[in-house]
């Protein structure tokens, strides 16, 4: 299968496909980060995570049309505001959902799965009623269009670079928040031992609510970033939910580092295979490999030692 390509071509292919994989990796990481926080911290399976992401995408789309029509002068930088709004919208909806739905179901994880699936159906239909069934795309500001020519056979698109930069920034931000801040300390305390955390005066209900909101908010940012590389429809979120869950489980549910490592390996495998096989077979082989590895090593790549 490598026969018809020369060595130079092959290395260019690997770099370009590797880069395409990095963009996929960015979206995966942003989605999986939120899910890893929710799943890792609370053991909640949030099947509506994809719809929180799509909410962020629609907020970005609204911002883009608003700035285009009313504030064209600020259009080049609308994206930053859109991301913040996406975070706030998804986060607020997440906290509302936690309050209304999730907190009644902490003891029944399988039921949470069904309830959040119901929520995702309702959100999908809401998007369809409000924004229409057709996919929408955002208008990119001019400085994000185009590509950087690295060598004569390798080009790197600017919007991809931007998405990656955002991903790095968010990942670092989450890591600092979880491992260096007072809130993060409380989150980790509740994760490690809920009754003890309550005994030392941590309001674990409040921590749960904010953690769920944080996870959903990050999903919103993921959706915002996603609009730069693809168009958004009411059911786009569902396409990613299985992959995201596999990434989180593959990485080891409670480990942020594991999530990143597994997102990296899955996205790279998939995009490299995609060049040589059809897209669907690449995906099948990647997912099969992940499921196979999970059958041999159910705890995932990285494990966090937590007393249950």
């Amino acid at each position, binding site marked *: 299968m490598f026969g018809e390509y020369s060595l130079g071509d092959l290395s260019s292919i690997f770099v370009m496909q590797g880069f395409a994989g990095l963009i996929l990796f960015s979206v995966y990481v942003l989605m999986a980060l939120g899910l890893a926080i929710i799943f890792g911290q609370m*053991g909640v*399976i949030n099947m509506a995570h994809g719809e929180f992401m799509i909410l962020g995408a629609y907020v970005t789309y609204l911002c883009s049309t608003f700035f285009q029509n009313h504030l064209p002068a600020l259009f080049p930088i609308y994206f930053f505001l859109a991301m913040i709004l996406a975070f706030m919208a998804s986060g607020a909806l997440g906290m509302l959902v936690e309050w209304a*739905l999730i907190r*009644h*179901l902490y003891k*029944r*994880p*399988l*039921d*949470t*799965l*069904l*309830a959040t*699936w*119901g*929520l*995702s*159906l*309702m*959100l*999908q*239909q*809401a998007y*369809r*009623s409000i924004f229409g069934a057709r996919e929408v795309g955002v208008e990119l500001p001019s400085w994000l269009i185009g590509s950087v020519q690295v060598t004569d056979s390798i080009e790197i698109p600017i919007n991809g670079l931007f998405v990656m930069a955002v991903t790095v920034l968010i990942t670092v931000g989450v890591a600092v928040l979880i491992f260096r801040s007072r809130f993060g300390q409380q989150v980790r305390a509740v994760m490690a031992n809920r009754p003890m955390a309550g005994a030392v005066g941590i309001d674990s209900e409040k921590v749960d609510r904010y953690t769920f909101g944080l996870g959903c908010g990050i999903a919103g940012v993921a959706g915002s970033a996603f609009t730069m590389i693809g168009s958004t429809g009411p059911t786009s979120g*569902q396409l990613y939910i*299985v992959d995201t*869950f*596999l990434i989180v*489980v593959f990485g080891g549910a409670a480990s942020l580092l594991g999530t990143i490592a597994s997102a990296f390996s899955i996205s790279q495998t998939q995009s490299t295979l995609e060049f040589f096989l*059809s897209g*669907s*077979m690449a*995906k*099948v082989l990647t*997912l*099969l490999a*992940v*499921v196979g590895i*999970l*059958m*041999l090593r*159910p705890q995932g790549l990285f494990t966090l030692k937590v007393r249950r």
Partner: protein
Amino acid sequence: MTNPIQSLTKSVTVNDNPFMKPIEWLSLALLVVVILVVLPATLDAFRLNLVGKYLTYAFVALGLVICWGYAGILSLGQGCFFGLGGYCMAMYLKLEASSIENTKIQSTPGIPDFMDWNQITSLPWFWKPFQSLPLTLILVIAVPVLFAFVISFAMFKRRVGGTYFAIITQAIAAILTILIVGQQGYTGGINGITDLRTLHGWDIRTDSAHNILYFVNGGLLIGCILIAQFVKKSKLGRILVAMRDKEDRVRFSGYSVAGFKVFAFCLAAAFAAIGGAMFTLQVGFMSPSFVGIVPSIDMVIYAAVGGRMSLFGAIWGTLLVNWAKTSFSESFPDLWLFGLGALFILVVLAFPNGLAGIWREHLEPRLTRRVKALRAPAPAIIPQSAPAE
């Protein structure tokens, strides 16, 4: 709120009596009368075929009651087994429909049309067994059960359970769908296997054939209910419940937990496969849209609405949800997904034991009190603390 699961467990485990209690015989009789007499007598051919289609989903819901309600294994991949059973049947029917004289305009006559469109010139090896009807009938059940066995054996031996198992089965459903859609030349792709005509020379597209198939389907469903009831009442059924509630204690008592879980999962897969095969026969095609995640989770909600612990509830739940779906999406297509979503949330939050739970907790005690009051005219004789169940 008292834990409903616990009160149900009590009624299951205390039970060392005959195969079915009087009330269960009554429910069975009611179901038989409705499925085999009332519905065929009142509905026209089109609606009856529609009910037949719903009843094929009831096989899956029935399997989920054993697998999820009793053994505590939530599978989000039942669509896989439904689909595999349906595809096995469809492959046989397709081969029969693609006889040499039917397909003589193709560049390779005698193979299914979609293979010809995809430049495949000979029948692939895994299609060959489906040229024979007896072999097909065996494979309809054997292939999905073997698949279920491979998945569940690997997972349960390593003590993967609960949410992880649900996520993995979901991923497997996704993989299978992508595979079927992607390998268009071998599977018919996104359209599935269509244009099915005859079963061993018998035209399955006529109204009379639909009628006969409906009764075959109903009979098979009742057979499956009896099998499930047998499993539920046997010692095995009690071990399943014990395992669901305290897996470690069962393991420490010397039982092989993995073996029992594999059995429950395979039984559910076999039921689903029968449903899939009957679906293909009655509806006349099979496509990947019945394999993926969305139908798989929909099937879970059928069982949840009917009551995850009730065999009969699962059938009623399936009929009810599908009836609602059909009538809603005919008149208000936009509202249906809202309704379905709300149903998921409502069932989980307010009625974890579904219709059967409402019956058992509210209606049945009241009914027993009525019956007792009728039998014994002097109510003072009945002690206040008479057992409610």
